């Protein structure tokens, strides 16, 4: 396992393979003169097609980084460049999934997954014409990939938590985003369902290769899925460790018991425990 990541250095405009770049991006909330820092000056580069996991103590600013990348939040200082442009210009097509699947209860799973096609250009102009034909077939193909094809016409409350989270992933992917942002998508699931969904997520990623930024508390999950793991310090967060994960793919749950994997887990765990205790000392 190599500690440094092989990302070409250079300006984003001449390096189109950079999907996301945070340069000295910092966020603080509150009124002028009485601000609370949520994120310290952070530099982060994600190459196109990379699967990056972001781990760290709770409240450290992981979600802030995600929201910055999604363009839902503007940095107080510094810049966030997504797809070679300042965020907000919508240079990249983005898909998002949270821990809460937020399926709309009045729509079937099929229509829920189709929702982005109703909103994102260029699909939205064809929505009325294609929702019963081409779009429907696309949704069904994607649902089949996650094993939900038989549930397309069910309503969300008829599905289990794991199934809803599969549908949630489908909704995040249906418009073929080149950047996928996941905020603890498997956090509320039981251990076995979670491990099952890691497999689903991995095969979805291997098939489509979007750039992924995954926020998680589960170090095993990060090791299983990510090609690179960034560790953050306690609030106000900054990235304190950045390492590539080279295990061969497709990875299996059995692999998570290998000595190498356990060692990686241990190392990440120690880093986060240190970060937590540092924060406790500063707070005291």
């Amino acid at each position, binding site marked *: 396992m190599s500690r440094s990541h092989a990302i070409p250095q250079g300006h984003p405009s001449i390096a189109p393979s950079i999907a996301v770049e945070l340069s000295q991006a910092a966020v603080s909330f509150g009124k002028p003169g009485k601000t609370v820092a949520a994120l310290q000056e952070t530099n982060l580069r994600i190459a196109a097609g990379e699967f990056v996991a972001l781990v760290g103590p709770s409240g450290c600013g992981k979600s802030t980084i995600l*929201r910055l990348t999604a363009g839902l939040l503007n940095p107080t200082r510094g810049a966030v460049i997504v797809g070679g442009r300042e965020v907000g210009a919508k240079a990249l097509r983005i898909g*998002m999934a949270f821990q809460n699947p937020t399926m709309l209860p009045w729509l079937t799973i099929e229509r829920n997954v189709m929702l982005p096609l109703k909103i994102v250009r260029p699909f939205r102009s064809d929505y009325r014409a294609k929702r019963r034909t081409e779009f429907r077939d696309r949704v069904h193909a994607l649902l089949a990939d996650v094993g939900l094809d038989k549930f397309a016409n069910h309503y969300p409350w008829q599905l289990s938590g794991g199934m809803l989270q599969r549908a949630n992933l489908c909704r995040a992917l249906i418009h073929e985003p080149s950047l996928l942002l996941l905020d603890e998508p498997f956090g509320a699931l039981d251990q076995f369902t979670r491990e099952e969904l890691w497999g689903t997520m991995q095969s979805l990623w291997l098939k489509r290769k979007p750039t992924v930024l995954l926020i998680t508390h589960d170090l095993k999950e990060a090791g299983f899925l990510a090609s690179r793991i960034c560790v953050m310090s306690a609030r106000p967060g900054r990235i304190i460790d950045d390492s590539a994960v080279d295990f061969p793919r497709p990875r299996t749950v059995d692999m998570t018991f290998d000595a190498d994997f356990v060692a990686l887990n241990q190392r990440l765990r120690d880093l986060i425990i240190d970060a937590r205790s540092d924060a406790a000392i500063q707070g005291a």
Partner: protein
Amino acid sequence: MSYDLRRRLWAALLILGFFAAWEILCLVLQVSDLVLPRPTQVFATLAARFGILLPHVMQTLWTTMIGFVLGVTVGVVIGAAIGVSRTAYDTVYPLLIGFSSIPKVAVVPIFVLWFGSGATPAILTALAMCFFPIVVNIATGLATTEPELEDVLKSLGASRLDILWNVGLPRTMPFFFASLKIAVTFAFVGSVLSETVASNKGIGNVMMTASSNFDVPLVFAGLFLLAALGILLYVAFSLVEARVTGWATRRQGFASA
């Protein structure tokens, strides 16, 4: 016997029992029909004078419905505005609460002063009575949209209108229909209230005239008519509600439909 049927049977028995008890008590205690007529007398009056009552029923019904439709329109627009915009909420809400706390009886004379007696004050009173529950319910429905879902849609480039149309309004439908059922009965109260004060037509007016003539059975006939109309409209909106927002009650029938 199915549970549903049994429930309905009990409801019907309660209504019949209520009228039977009323009838028997009046007979046993020898209550004068100037004080409390027996249900049979009321129904007899209804049957005998139905021809004369019908135009009044129609008058009350149409003023109520116009007031109701206007009230719903006003309610939806204000409710949507304050549900979507925090600024609108902060600005408009205090005034709305002030307005809704005014007893509407006090407003009728003002409407009469402005528009004369007749249908116009009845419509306006119905409107004033029924728009507030709609405002509150629409605003609540819109305010309960999950923030995560809003983030997902915003990151897709959805406009506020997209979010309102695809998420906010459908989510509001159960609240909306619940408020419609309340609003329609309120609209009735409003129009009848106005008719009793200033109109020469409508059930409210009939009841006022009848009570000053000591024609108590006719007063009660008016009451019965109002109750019947109220139930009719309530049922109508319940049926529409069940069709449109069945998802909110997780009915099996809705899921398989």
